[in-house]
């Protein structure tokens, strides 16, 4: 396998873009990434597009061809990827494999989504699933996980809500974030209850937006990039759907983490910053545990002790996370990696982490029988 580098990144502001199309949002992110890398559309040898809901919400399929065509990329292989919230990060892994495997020298990965819903409604996805027909909803499933974590480990509502306070603070420092507003613990706890114990501000918003990165081989990276960042691990796992398992941890994520750490030849103690899938506050607490940032059950203490704050030992979701930056489903996995690239380059502005060298991005997508359909982990290293 060859080493794979990221040489360009771009993203749109995340938020509400009612007047803009999927292809228009995707074009903006791709254009930025091309300019950032200093290459032209003709240099791209393959394109990978993550989009989860276009066929459901917009009635649009083949989003990748639409987006890449907007910036003049055609004729080459273009692949559309749907893996729920992990669509963008799965697209990234496909691009990584193409370069690592020696099939391409330069590829582009884009994630794009328009998921803003009418006020007070939830995304209607998975309608064909039995659990959904019986009343299972995304915040409900994660509320069950939170209830069990509270019961088993004594995790408190304040600790869980503290994730939202921290990430919204980070979001105020990120011009690309949907929310640019500080929330107090009381704001989060007293916002309308969605699924007990998760309140409205414990849930990420549905968002519109796009993010793109350009990957290349080592030889190309040395020609093109002043500060190459290497993808040291790219891992995708799927659940066991064993319905007797403990729901306060995700085996699918622990497996991905072990595999990623082996692949990158490092461990959680070597990480300088982490972006995790905080679609709901409780998720960040458990992801920190599954990734080995703390012991199982200690995720709430990370919040109490400020360990995952911007100035803490291991900043988590410096971008504001999905909670504050927003969650354009298919774009989120790519946007996490854009954030890490910017941080490793020292280009993260007011939310810059002090001299990071290693960053990890984790996201997972799709619930099935109390387990998860897809979990990806990417580890990036500044060389």
């Amino acid at each position, binding site marked *: 396998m060859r080493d794979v580098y990221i040489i360009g990144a771009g993203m749109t502001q995340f938020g509400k873009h009612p007047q803009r199309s999927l292809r228009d949002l995707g074009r903006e992110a791709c254009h930025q990434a091309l300019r950032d890398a200093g290459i032209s559309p003709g240099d791209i040898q393959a394109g990978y597009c993550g989009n989860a809901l276009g066929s459901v919400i917009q009635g649009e399929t083949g989003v990748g061809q639409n987006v890449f065509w907007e910036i003049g990329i055609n004729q080459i292989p273009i692949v559309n990827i749907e893996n729920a919230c992990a669509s963008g990060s799965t697209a990234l892994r496909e691009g990584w494999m193409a370069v690592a495997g020696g099939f391409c020298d330069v590829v582009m990965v884009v994630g794009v989504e328009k998921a803003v819903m009418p006020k007070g409604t939830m995304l209607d996805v998975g309608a064909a699933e039995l659990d959904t027909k019986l*009343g299972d909803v995304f915040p409900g499933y994660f509320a069950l996980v939170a209830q069990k974590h509270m019961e088993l480990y004594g995790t408190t509502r304040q600790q869980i809500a503290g994730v939202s306070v921290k990430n919204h603070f980070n979001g105020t420092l990120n011009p690309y974030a949907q929310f640019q507003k500080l929330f107090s613990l009381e704001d989060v706890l007293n916002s309308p209850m969605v699924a007990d114990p998760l309140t409205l501000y414990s849930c990420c918003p549905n968002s519109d937006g796009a993010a793109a990165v350009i990957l290349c081989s080592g030889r190309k990276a040395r020609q093109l990039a002043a500060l190459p960042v290497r993808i040291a691990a790219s891992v995708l796992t799927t659940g066991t759907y064993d319905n007797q398992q403990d729901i306060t941890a995700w085996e699918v994520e622990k497996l991905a983490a072990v595999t990623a750490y082996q692949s990158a030849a490092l461990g959680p103690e070597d990480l300088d910053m982490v972006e995790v899938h905080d679609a709901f506050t409780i998720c960040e607490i458990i992801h920190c545990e599954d990734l080995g940032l703390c012991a199982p059950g200690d995720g709430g203490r990370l919040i109490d002790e400020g360990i995952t704050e911007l100035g803490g030992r291991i900043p988590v979701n410096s971008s504001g996370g999905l909670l504050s930056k927003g969650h354009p489903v298919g774009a989120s996995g790519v946007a996490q990696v854009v954030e890490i690239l910017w941080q490793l380059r020292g280009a993260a502005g007011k939310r810059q982490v002090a001299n990071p060298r290693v960053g990890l991005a984790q996201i997972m997508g799709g619930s099935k029988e109390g387990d998860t359909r897809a979990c990806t982990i990417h580890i990036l290293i500044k060389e």
Partner: protein
Amino acid sequence: MSEAINPSQSSENQIRIPVQEGLFDFPPDEGQHPALLANSCRHCGKCFFPKRTFCPDCFEQGELEDIVLDRKGVIYAVTVVHLSSPSGIKAPYAYGYVNIPANKIRILAPFTGASPNSFHAGMEVELVLDTIRTDSKGQHIIGYKFKPLS
């Protein structure tokens, strides 16, 4: 909160449709308790609900036989949802995971027969068939729920 019903003895001419085929006999036979239709692997003993065609662990070495799940369960985790579901279930409603100890299986189900906030982990519950929601034509969509053990 609606009471558990015996769908075959409905006094009105309401149309009642199971939420999905193959989960339970509907309408149930006279005098029969409702039961969830499952299967289990003769090789490893694992239970599956809804039924599967292959045991994921034993594949062709397993042979699946039809069983019905025990009607008694214990709540593993519960939440109360305060927004009506996209499928049309009116808020607030309680649902969660129920362990069926006799069959070593955990299933997701709505709760009924008590206030949504009164359910808690460890509570003993039993199976009923009940309306999950009414659709746009006024038809009752029938599914399984669990109520506090009487």
